[in-house]
């Protein structure tokens, strides 16, 4: 896997519609990650979550590289 920090925009083009796990995260002034070192990528989010448990780095980010469909809604309710 990558040994260097790369722009997330570059990784999104390289791995479209995938989930990414990044370490060594660099964020902008508004807390949004802009760079990171790629540790894992997968079309299956569970693969990334499983890998998350084994990562020792101080900063970690999970990214989905696809576009959110315009008709996607999220509904959640608890009591």
């Amino acid at each position: 896997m990558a040994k260097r920090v790369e722009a997330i925009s570059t990784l999104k083009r390289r791995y479209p519609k995938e989930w990414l796990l990044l370490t060594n995260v660099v964020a902008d002034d508004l807390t949004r990650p802009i760079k990171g070192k790629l540790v894992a990528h997968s079309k299956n989010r569970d693969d990334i979550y499983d890998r998350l448990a084994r990562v020792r780095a101080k900063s970690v980010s999970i990214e989905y590289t696809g576009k959110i469909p315009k008709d996607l809604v999220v509904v959640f309710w608890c009591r």
Partner: protein
Amino acid sequence: MGQQAFDPARHIIIVRVKLQDESGRLLYLQMALDTGASMTVIPWQAAERLGLDPARSRRRVRFMTGSGTEVAPIITVPVMELIGVRVTNVPVLCHDLPQRSLVDGLLGLSFLKYCRLNIDFPKGVLSLDLSNRSRTSGVGSR
């Protein structure tokens, strides 16, 4: 005050949230802003990454999903931050949203109630600031 743009044509507002544990380790998640959700929701593995053990939590809530009623633990995340606004000791519910939701979690009222939130749909701008109340609730801005 922090601001970020969003696409008002979509039915979901995606935000990038920074979570921090007591030792300073950071985890960035993609979450859906949900002003109708009582609780902020993060995946189980995210909680474990922050050194928190949901299985040992005594606080549990019932909630409805597409497949019925489930019970999930509530834990306290030491620090959460959105577009520069930082809130401490945030109660969150541990539950994995369906993979097809394309987000890791929901940012709900257990975080947002400490903030002044303005959603300008015509301009597609989300603005967030700490509320006065937050200063007496153990909440701080960076």
